[in-house]
């Protein structure tokens, strides 16, 4: 193997595709939606969600039976069902301080893990492993959190550092495998997700992690001294998520390391020629992505004070990928995406309670958003937005054309 074995697509992109401001050099960039399609996807998802609400409300179905003799009832009940459902969604997510708290707490881990996926993405790596990295972080945070006895503050700090370090190690393994052997990060991170999950299950079966007097695979909760203090009902860890976003922004946009990451992500070959260490950058990006996923675990264990279970990470690690893509792998994007998904999940509960809409609807909405974001052509087709310039036609271009 030569020293700089840069993995690259078979052919460099054609030198000219004018009018395309997208990061066409980054091999994953083709998956990123534009702002327009993102907003359109959200709107479309809400429209289809409305249809789902309508046709899952018994009163509306009932009214269909006499639709032709008295259609007004159908429209009235349908309107009421959608109004009730969506007002409950809004109220349940941002309608009261209580719901805002819940939204923020649910958004925080999504933001952190989403930032991790974004950061890797900008470095040309598709990190599917946020889930595993979170589990590794959760194990470390939980263990330090319930097993030791340190003074408050210090205990929290140590537990958080342990979680971030564990996440970094977990991400770093995939990065190291990529740098040293060329192993594709998509495969290795998926596999590491399984390893982390079974490691968690294994540990929960051990006395060391088992909650006393419990038959479930459940750890003790973290000690009070290792949890974030609450301010106005929100754990202060949430602030860290926003600070992390600021940090990632500075790293990517203002630092030499970020410059290297972006260059390696967009054109590894040019980066290597300019004297950057491509392999080291891959490793560093994955380790940092893992650290951010570890921070997401901090939000859950030390913020929301969850105990370790095999499902402690829920689907946050995978939703993080969505959040990152929805956020176009920028820095602000995952913050907004995380808040949106946090709001949907928090509002989904309220929808069930207040409007009798199944809570799964919130997940269906998330899924629809993802679907539409992933299929921009579909969105354009539905909205009849003309594909201006960003269509797939390859125009003949000279070297300078």
């Amino acid at each position, binding site marked *: 193997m030569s020293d700089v074995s840069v993995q690259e697509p078979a052919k460099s992109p054609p030198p000219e595709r004018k009018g395309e401001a997208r990061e066409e050099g980054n091999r994953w960039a083709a998956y990123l939606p534009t702002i327009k399609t993102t907003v359109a996807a959200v709107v479309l998802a809400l429209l289809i969600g409305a249809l789902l609400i309508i046709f899952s409300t018994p009163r509306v179905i009932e009214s269909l039976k006499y639709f032709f003799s008295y259609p007004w009832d159908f429209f009235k009940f349908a309107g009421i069902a959608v109004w009730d459902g969506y007002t409950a969604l809004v109220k349940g997510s941002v309608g009261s301080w209580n719901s805002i708290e819940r939204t923020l707490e649910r958004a925080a881990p999504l933001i952190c893990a989403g930032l991790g996926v974004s950061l890797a993405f900008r470095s040309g790596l598709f990190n599917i492993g946020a889930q595993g990295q979170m589990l590794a972080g959760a194990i470390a945070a939980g263990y330090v959190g319930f097993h030791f006895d340190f003074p408050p503050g210090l205990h929290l700090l140590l537990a958080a550092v342990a979680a971030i370090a564990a996440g970094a190690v977990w991400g770093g393994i995939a990065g190291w495998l990529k740098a040293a052997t060329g192993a594709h990060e998509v495969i290795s991170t998926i596999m590491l997700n399984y390893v982390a999950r079974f490691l968690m299950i294994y540990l929960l079966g051990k006395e060391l992690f088992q909650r006393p007097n419990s038959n479930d695979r459940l750890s003790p909760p973290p000690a009070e001294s290792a949890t974030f203090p609450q301010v106005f009902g929100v754990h202060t860890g949430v602030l860290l998520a926003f600070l992390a976003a600021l940090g990632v922004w500075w790293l990517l946009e203002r630092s030499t390391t970020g410059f290297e990451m972006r260059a390696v992500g*967009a054109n590894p070959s040019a980066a290597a020629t300019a004297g950057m260490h491509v392999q080291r950058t891959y490793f560093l990006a994955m380790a940092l992505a893992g650290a951010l996923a570890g921070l997401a675990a901090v939000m859950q264990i030390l913020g929301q004070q969850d105990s370790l279970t095999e499902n402690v990470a829920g689907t946050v690690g995978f939703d993080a990928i969505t959040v990152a893509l929805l956020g176009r792998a920028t820095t602000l994007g995952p913050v907004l995406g995380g808040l949106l998904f946090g709001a949907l999940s928090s509002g989904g509960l309220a929808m069930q309670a207040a409007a009798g809409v199944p809570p799964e609807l919130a997940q269906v909405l998330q899924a629809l958003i993802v679907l539409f974001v992933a299929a921009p052509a579909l969105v354009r087709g539905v909205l009849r937005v003309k594909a201006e310039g960003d269509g797939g036609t390859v125009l003949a271009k000279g070297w300078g054309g």
Partner: protein
Amino acid sequence: MKLEMRGLTRRFGSFTANDHIDLTIEPGEIHCLLGENGAGKSTLMNMLYGLLEPTEGEILVDGEPADFDTPGDAIAAGIGMVHQHFMLVPVFTVAENVMLGREQTRGLGILDRGKAAELVRELSTRYKLAVDPTALVENLPVGVQQRVEIIKALANEAKVLILDEPTAVLTPQEIDELMDIMRALKKQGTSIVFITHKLREVKAVGDKITVIRRGKVVGTASPDAPEAELAEMMVGRAVNLTVGKEPPKVGKPVLEVNGVTVVDDRGTTVVRDVSFDARGGEVLGIAGVQGNGQTELIKSLLGIIRPDAGKVLLEGQDISRHGPKDSLEAGIGYIPEDRAHDGYVSSFSVRENLVLDLYRRNDFSRGAALKLDAIEKNAKARIEEFDIRTENMNSSLASLSGGNQQKVVVAREFSRPLKVLIASQPTRGVDVGSIEFIHKRIIEERDRGTAVIIVSTELDEIYALSDRIAVMYDGRIVGTVTPDIPREQIGLLMAGAHDGHETQAHETQGGAA
């Protein structure tokens, strides 16, 4: 078939790429479309091929107005196009590529590959396009792939063939072969629209020349017009085609290369025991047909590839084990052969690309933080100094023309003190005006005492710049000569047909220069 364009106009927003272009392609003529990068040649051809809709104007085929909404319409009308970036499926055979989209079957949906192969054979004998129909496209050299594209167009019964900068990717030999093919096609009655910005080629095969500048037809010329006149029409001002330079003030050897050998990933030895000195204040040209080890040689000089044997000494220090980072910092400037691949990041802004390998220096960063002000100031200065045509310093490199992209790379490498400048194909795909400028800068760098190494497959460039020429063939330097020997002799060396004694003689001569 007679093809006419009348008042063809295409606007992109407020920008007019083509402004009322009138052009007539007579049957059986080779019509050259000459123009700088960004002059609007490709836009015009894309309209002709149904890829872009004209804003105004019309296209007439044999006097009848034609409306090409898709390339399919254009193909049906007898127009064939060979794109600069080939549209072939690498894992398919030649015959399969030719039949693609018009597959013939033997009932039950079984592909009739035999018939396709037959067609390829027939076309290749008729037009003297030597191609093996059963070869896989990915195994073919670029020149032959281009022939496959031409056969594909002919299989669609193209009467007018558009060749979009066909020579940009070819070696000198392949260019000669292509010219022969073009003449054969013409003899059979096919008209050719030949897009290029190389004057020599236009003069060699063209019947008629139309020059386009800034989206307008600025004139027509016959192929016997002097080169300087054509260049002036193209650029819009008088262009100096020869590089004005003083005799070199040759200094000490700065870069010494001793027995460098490179074995590639497949185990082939691509650079064999190469030794030479690059001396301060002198331009050493490395000539050779593409693929004779020049690419790997210069990559090993910068340390992108570590040589398997031999040493590279910069002022006596062995740098062959250093990576590109240390070599760049030690004062080597490097203009890579494939700029889109190695020279710049197309999604990065002009500002960022201008410091792509300089951001580590104290001028542009303090600790881990980039000095944005300094980077901006640098961008302003370089854009001004090198006349980089860009909307602003934050435009992405992808939005610049090829010549300006190259200027960004050149500007960056020239913006720090150099001991050695290694430039590979410094003007490939660059328009005449920019070539003049880049050559001037290279000579200025030489006169500052820098050792300059130029690698080029174009003999014109080698002759224009070099004070000494080393010729590479099959991974070796087969001779070092002075630029006063005739082209034919260098051509022979490049083709590997050298005779030991003769070379020896030239080597002594070169050493004395």
